[in-house]
């Protein structure tokens, strides 16, 4: 099946948008603490501007061919950080969960890039405008977005993508999983 190509100017209500999750390093002196099972504020904190980048992963659900297209881009983005970060996958939810109405302070807008037609932004300029301190507002925006994705979203792990290959028929994949299960792997 051909890969879904999104409209370049509008994001549909049911489109599934995903925020990339990169491995976040722990504080040097705090590596002895118990692991935290949850999304971190940093996953939603934009350091450059007010726009939070997301990927449009499918028209009404996560499209595997889109994910396969985006994987190398995401991995390459991870290696471009000052300290390279492993790409772990996406946290995904339907666009309407972010943008409940046209008047919503959070808007999801398409912003295709040359190499990534699936790129979009969550605009946050109109959100929490009463907060005077910019740094505090950015943290708050990230906290609210994390709450949205935690409450309504799912995790699409990068490992799931690498396990399946494009040309494999479904029955081959199922057989392979059964054999792996049988041998406890």
């Amino acid at each position: 099946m051909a890969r879904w190509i999104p409209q370049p100017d509008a994001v549909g209500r049911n489109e599934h948008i995903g925020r990339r999750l990169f491995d976040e390093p722990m504080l040097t002196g705090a590596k002895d603490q118990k692991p935290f099972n949850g999304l971190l504020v940093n996953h939603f904190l934009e350091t450059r501007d007010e726009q939070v980048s997301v990927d449009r992963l499918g028209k009404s659900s996560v499209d595997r061919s889109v994910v396969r297209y985006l994987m190398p881009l995401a991995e390459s983005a991870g290696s471009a950080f000052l300290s390279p970060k492993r790409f772990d996958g996406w946290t995904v939810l339907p666009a309407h969960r972010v943008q409940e109405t046209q008047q919503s302070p959070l808007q999801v807008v398409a912003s295709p890039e040359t190499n990534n037609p699936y790129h979009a932004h969550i605009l946050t300029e109109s959100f929490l405008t009463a907060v005077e301190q910019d740094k505090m507002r950015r943290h708050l925006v990230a906290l609210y977005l994390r709450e949205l994705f935690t409450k309504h979203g799912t995790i699409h792990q990068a490992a799931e993508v690498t396990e399946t290959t494009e040309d494999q028929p479904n029955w081959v994949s199922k057989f392979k999983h059964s054999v792996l299960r049988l041998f406890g792997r």
Partner: protein
Amino acid sequence: MFLPTAAASIAIRTPDYTPGPTSLSGSEISWVPSARRLSDSKPEQLIYITAPVKPQWFASVQMRLRRSVKPNSRADNDPEWISQEVADAGNAFFEKTADILPGEPFIYRSSLGDLVAEFRTERGAMTTVVSPGFLLLFAVIDGKPIERQVPESGDVRAELQELSSQLRMDQHGAMDTAA
């Protein structure tokens, strides 16, 4: 029976005592009650103020913060280190509030350089962002997000008390410990 008088008392001599040039007569001696003191080293107010008992995790968190202070050789935006100012703000926050926090925090550095502490309970979650300039409390209790922005001069304990007690409360409400 012998009753001690002021004149008799002043006449008692001890080996290391040398009387002054003028001797005092009994009428010149007036009894002055000495100030009531409980300690030679601490003012009385401090003795009566009970310091809250710190939870077991407090020392570990202090240690983690201390060990994470950025040495001069590291870059400012290195995600594995925090600045001395942020560590100080974190220490001050835990010092003030450790006894009312809902449990041991998971700490990390936010991408903007501040300290983030995550707390989880069965009833919900709370995140605090500690910065030298502000404190942010964000709790999700029974699925409802609640935020508190605490300025530098704000009363952190008062703001935190309500959120924290709600997070620790079980589904049947607050437990009354009084008999």
